[in-house]
């Protein structure tokens, strides 16, 4: 038997038992439309790549990290000062988390501006929104793990804000903290959320999200006539381009991590005053700054509660976008959706900057 025959026989044997050729056929038929907005398609892939980086570096950090109040800060310091390239691995994990959130936001807004959430992609949109929530959850829970001063107080504030939600608030805050206050139990819980609970849910949802993208194919902006649209094969043509983009992202990530290593700060001390200039991660800054601006009482309502209601209403409108916008293609509702997206981008950018400088 020649080598070529052997190869065919082996592949046949495998196909008979696994049906892998079906997957190959799917790959063969997958195409990507080429138009002025094709570049936006890369952000889903970039997000996926960064999730891969997070899993990889996260597994590495777990080799040395210890999730207890007594040891966590010192174990992170051990990673950064004693373990070879530990500072780099941790810095990449932190930077990658931030780029990941940024990439998710760009991905989401590109979907809104091209109205890619419309029928039949409502569930793709909803699963994406849930994934955004999970990614923010990863950020929030991971932030506490080094148990330093900044993250300790950020978690106190964050869980307190969750606690102001009407009716269920106190229960949520208690659940998140594992008690009345942020302490040893909170760290254990956040560790659980960060490395077990959120990853498990995310894997399922990412599978669903990607499956739906395969099922419906790439959405094209409605303004482009189908006749003028050309397509390229996903595999290998688009995939190779994606690889090159990922390579570029990795270069940016490596540079940021090496040139601006993530700091560790001081060990959390529950009996110290909150340090000046305390603020959450940048992706919570806009909301944080808004809450700072709202007076303690507006008419008969508590200010914080009012802010929370405002965010809630906006978020609900956003999540349900495919259900109220897509009823009629074009027209007033479409303009409203686009206007809302423009307003949100503007609000997020301005308030994030304000939250940062003030």
């Amino acid at each position, binding site marked *: 038997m020649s080598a070529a025959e052997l190869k065919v026989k082996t592949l046949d044997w495998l196909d008979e038992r696994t049906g892998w050729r079906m997957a190959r056929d799917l790959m063969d038929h997958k195409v990507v439309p080429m138009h002025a907005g094709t570049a936006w398609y890369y952000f889903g892939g970039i997000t996926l790549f960064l999730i891969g980086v997070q899993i990889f570096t996260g597994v590495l950090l777990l080799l040395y990290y210890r999730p207890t109040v007594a040891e966590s800060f010192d174990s992170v310091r051990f990673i950064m000062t004693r*373990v*070879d*390239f530990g500072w780099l*691995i941790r810095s990449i994990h932190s930077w990658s988390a931030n780029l990941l959130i940024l990439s998710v936001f760009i991905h989401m807004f590109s979907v809104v501006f091209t109205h890619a959430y419309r029928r039949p992609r409502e569930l793709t949109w909803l699963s994406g929104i849930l994934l955004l929530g999970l990614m923010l959850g990863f950020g929030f829970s991971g932030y506490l793990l080094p148990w330093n001063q900044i993250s300790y107080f950020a978690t106190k504030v964050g869980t307190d804000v969750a606690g102001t939600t009407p009716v269920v608030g106190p229960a949520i805050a208690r659940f998140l903290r594992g008690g009345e206050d942020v302490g040893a139990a909170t760290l254990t819980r956040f560790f659980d959320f960060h490395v077990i609970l959120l990853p498990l849910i995310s894997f399922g949802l990412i599978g669903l999200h990607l499956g739906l993208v395969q099922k419906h194919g790439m959405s094209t902006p409605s303004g482009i006539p189908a006749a003028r649209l050309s397509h390229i094969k996903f595999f290998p043509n688009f995939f190779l381009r994606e690889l090159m983009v990922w390579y570029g992202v990795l270069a940016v990530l490596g540079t940021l991590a090496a040139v601006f290593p993530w700091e560790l700060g001081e060990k959390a001390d529950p009996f110290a005053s909150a340090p000046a200039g305390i603020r959450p991660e940048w992706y919570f800054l806009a909301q944080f700054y808004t809450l700072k601006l709202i007076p303690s009482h507006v008419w008969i309502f508590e200010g914080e509660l009012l802010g929370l209601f405002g965010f809630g209403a906006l978020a609900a409108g956003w999540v349900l976008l495919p259900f109220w916008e897509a009823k009629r293609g074009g027209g007033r509702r479409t303009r409203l959706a686009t206007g809302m997206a423009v307003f949100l981008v503007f609000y997020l950018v301005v308030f994030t900057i304000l939250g940062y400088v003030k």
Partner: protein
Amino acid sequence: MQRTDSVDTGSQDRRTAISWLLGSAVAASLASFFYPVVRFLNPPKVAEISVNEVDAGKVADLKPNSGKIVKFGNKPVLLVHVNETDWKAFSAVCTHLNCTVQYQEARREIWCACHNGTYDLEGRVSSGPPPKPLEEMAVKIRGEDIVISRKG
């Protein structure tokens, strides 16, 4: 005909050269990604607590024909009060597979529970799988205090 052939060979060569360049660049960058990872996996040496002698308690606290485990730096040491005048101390780490040994009063020997290895009171293997004798330590009595130190 010949001209075309030679042109083809030339472009083929260029193609091969470019593939090689691209391939080695990718390989080099992959190596640069994974080199730090391999180094990261290697746990840094945690300083061994180096001790030359430890206080093992009072003479009165350990009756004859009994033994106890004493911390010697971060290693366990088995101290045996053999009889009124005789004291012995050995590294308590079984030479077979690292278990911690204990003193058996009834049989007056040192026994390892993991795989039933036994040593006599000189630390020599008397039965079972251990390949080497236990490392002996020096015991000194200073008044009421027992002091264990490294031998030699």
